[in-house]
């Protein structure tokens, strides 16, 4: 029998942008088991509900994470709007959808860059992040912020986007799509990249379901699940299909995310073409009273927002179940039987956001 050893991995590791720790039980170079450990940067943001009123909480929730900041704010606002039966104006819905899809583009490009960095393809990493920079420029142009831009409010959005800006967004995202078509070839067809991704970190459809995975991680195992199909914000007016892959490995996860960037760019274009005129927010009076669950498709998958209010200006409870939290059990399964050298890559393939997880 091969000798077993336990190798601590993280919380500080060159491939980890944020802290997570795994105790890897190895037999020679094969991982037998992985035991996760989180909680290094837990902030308890949810407990601020008794210090910040339900309007101020929007800004707290947006600070859950620097990558999906906008979508966190949007999810929280939708949960409070659901409690208060507030219908936001159509233009507000379309703007939220447009910014949400721009967030997906920048998040997936960030992930592609990190993946390229993890398998040692530095020039590919630079190319992905150079393209991502263009999305951040668009955020800055439309909102004034590049990461956290606080444009959500209960009842709609705070900033409008004029026609010139909309045209710029459409043109720039089309440029990104053209550049991505070139880069896609490297990710999907280069034999050195394929060698690192194909057949690595297999998670079957059944395993993905049984382990409660979400988002591109689940869709890459053939699970056809996307919260956008519930038609929240303006998604009900837009035309799109759920992108899946039956590869069930790291290659499939990469394929799904690349295709989702093209899809997001298409959705941004549809939003701009159909952008209604009118108000961007509605006036909201009173305090919320009741409870609501809202589910939203973030770049990393299904996020659940739960708000509970008692009629005062402070919520009783606000809870976010982030997709990374749901994907950790799936990650542990993919690590079983993997080569030790593939561990950093496999952790990346779930696109972990520990900042969200440690909200």
């Amino acid at each position, binding site marked *: 029998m091969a000798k077993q050893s336990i190798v601590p991995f993280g919380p500080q590791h060159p491939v980890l942008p944020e802290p997570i720790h795994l105790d890897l039980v190895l037999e020679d170079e094969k991982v037998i088991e992985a035991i996760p450990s989180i909680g290094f940067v837990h902030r308890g943001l949810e*407990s601020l509900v*008794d210090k910040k009123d339900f309007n101020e909480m929007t800004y707290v929730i947006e600070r859950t994470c620097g990558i999906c900041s906008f979508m966190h704010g949007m999810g929280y606002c939708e949960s409070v709007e659901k409690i208060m039966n507030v219908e936001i104006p159509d233009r507000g819905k379309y703007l939220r959808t447009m910014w949400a899809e721009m967030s997906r583009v920048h998040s997936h490009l960030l992930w592609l860059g990190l993946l390229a960095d993890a398998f040692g393809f530095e020039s590919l990493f630079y190319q992905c992040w150079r393209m991502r920079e263009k999305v951040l420029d668009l955020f800055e142009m439309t909102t004034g912020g590049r990461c956290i831009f606080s444009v959500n409010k209960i009842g709609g959005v705070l900033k409008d986007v004029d026609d010139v800006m909309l045209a710029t967004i459409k043109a720039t995202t089309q440029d990104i799509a053209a550049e991505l078509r070139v880069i896609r070839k490297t990710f999907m067809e280069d034999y050195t990249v394929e060698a690192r991704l194909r057949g690595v970190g297999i998670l079957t459809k059944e395993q993905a379901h049984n382990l*409660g995975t979400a988002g591109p991680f689940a869709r890459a195992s053939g699970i056809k699940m996307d919260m956008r*199909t519930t*038609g929240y914000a303006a998604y009900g007016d837009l035309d799109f299909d*759920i992108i899946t892959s039956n590869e069930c490995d790291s290659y499939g996860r990469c394929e799904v995310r690349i295709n989702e960037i093209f899809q997001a760019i298409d959705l941004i274009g549809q939003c701009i073409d159909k952008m209604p005129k009118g108000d961007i927010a509605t006036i909201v009076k009173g305090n919320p009273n009741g409870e609501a669950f809202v589910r939203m498709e973030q770049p990393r998958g*299904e996020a659940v927002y739960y708000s*509970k209010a008692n009629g005062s200006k402070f919520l009783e409870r606000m809870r976010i179940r982030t997709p990374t939290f749901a994907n950790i059990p799936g990650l542990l399964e993919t690590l079983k039987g993997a080569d030790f050298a593939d561990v950093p890559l496999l952790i990346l393939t779930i696109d972990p956001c520990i900042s969200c997880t440690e909200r």
Partner: protein
Amino acid sequence: MEIKNPEHVIVQITPEELLGNVVAMKKNGLRLSQICCAYSNEKLELSYSFADDNTYDYINLRLVIDKDTEVCSITELYPYAFLYENEMKELFGVNIMMLNVDYNSKLYRLHDETPFIK
């Protein structure tokens, strides 16, 4: 694309009914989407949310219990519930029995005991 119009329901149950209901969810192929706890009127409110990924329906099993009431772990049925259950135990002090993977209140490495109970 067909837009789904999912139902969101909250079903009140007792701690004794929890496992029976969770078995039914498992048999129906529902995914455990999340478990969360809220502290309201000196009671703990536990919500076990199950998602049907075909219809997008969302079923929440709601337990309202006293702080010292014991609740059975569902990790035998949904092994990945261990993270949610450890979180509830650590932040709210929910008394969970037969937890498969018990972090012994070290999941989040907090200084305060049950910080979400105020």
